[in-house]
């Protein structure tokens, strides 16, 4: 499983950090999301799916190979 973040789309809401704090963080200067883990383990899958679903900019995509 691979996480893709479309950074220019990010609106800095921080919803992903609340849903999946092990995979996402935010930049201090503008709040734009940072991907901490591009290929997170299975145990984080549910959290990442939640982040994808609640991102208000549709900026996160989960690619399951």
């Amino acid at each position, binding site marked *: 499983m691979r996480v893709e973040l479309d950074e220019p*789309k990010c*609106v*800095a*809401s*921080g*919803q992903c*950090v*609340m849903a999946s704090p092990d995979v996402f963080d*935010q*930049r*201090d*200067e*503008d*709040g734009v999301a940072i991907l901490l883990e591009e290929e997170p383990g299975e145990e984080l899958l549910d959290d990442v*799916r939640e982040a994808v*679903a*609640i*991102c*208000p*900019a*549709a900026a996160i*995509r989960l690619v399951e190979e």
Partner: protein
Amino acid sequence: MNRVVVVGASAAGLAAVETLRREGFDGTVTLVGDEPHPPYDRPPLSKQLLSGEWSPGRLALRPTSDLDALDLDLRLGVAATGLDVPDRTVRLADGSAVPYDGLIVATGVRPRRLPGEGAHVLRTLDDAMTLRDRLEPGLRLVVVGAGFLGAEAAAVARRLGAEVTLLEPAPVPLAHAVGEEVGRVLSRAHLDHGVNLRTGVTVTAVTEDGVRLADGEQVDADEVLVAIGSLPHTEWLADSGLAVGDGLICDEYCEAARNVYAAGDVARWYNPLFGTSMRIEHRTNAAEQGMAAARNLLHPEARKPFAPVPYFWSDQYDMKVQAYGYLRGHDEVAVVDGDLQARRFVAAYRTGDRLTGALAVGMPPKAIRTWRQAIAAGASWREAVRQETPATAADTKEVVHD
């Protein structure tokens, strides 16, 4: 349950159908949308789409392959026209009737308009494309309504070189939403960027050459954008027997009637975290409520009250405004971090003895996340603000008397 119908194919409807599939529902899922476009995102309409930075394709909420994988019975470009609750059937504008075991209503809102022809509104992709095609340097644009939508559109139009007049009936724009002091500071950005902001003026009609004010004055314009709020799309439910009153009325589970749920801008539900019924027109709420409604519909034995901390953001000029909580009807505002005049601050909102909201401009994400957590925890004003307030904040407190 074999058939679920979701009416409304925007953020809330999409979140609902995705959640149904994620939760393992393998029956028929019908998604009905009155616009011809596959689900797209609305916040960029008044930002990157209007400015021309993004093309319409960039607004797609999901790639086609992801939509295909949901295996939907997708009915786009056809509005729902009626609902028969005892018969469990949704009637569509093309004459067809779709039976359901479970229904999620996510029909959103439509813009309020003014008497007279020829004004723009800004709700759909087509609205935004039409306005975008007209914006050019020197164009005289009148924006009616200095709420968040009007403010964002005014900011984009200025950046593109239009001459913008922003007309607002209230003495201070956004005061009802964010308080007078914060509203005044935000609206100063318009003046700094050369927008002709006129407050305390009521527009009564759109005319051939602009708009007419209540006192008879004519304000000339090449184009007029009306951004005076919206009305929930509930007309199609008029004969359904469901309770409608500024939205489809639901309980704390987002249920309006047995196996009928609502989500997004159209839903008025009881939010137990704030102890009040609310209808929220925020992008984040659409997704969260779509998910919650779908889960509660699928798992009646394990329903959860929908008790979110609402969140919205707005981009105007170089400002990003972010707010958590339920600010409406607040009793007091206090600046608890930063500097109001520098447009870099966090303001906290009190309702009764509770901390109910926080609004930030230009602050690092962690500075506002703390406040969100306090709101979610139901913190009292005293414990939240006493710990965070610098000693000088008393000077900037604003008490609302009404």
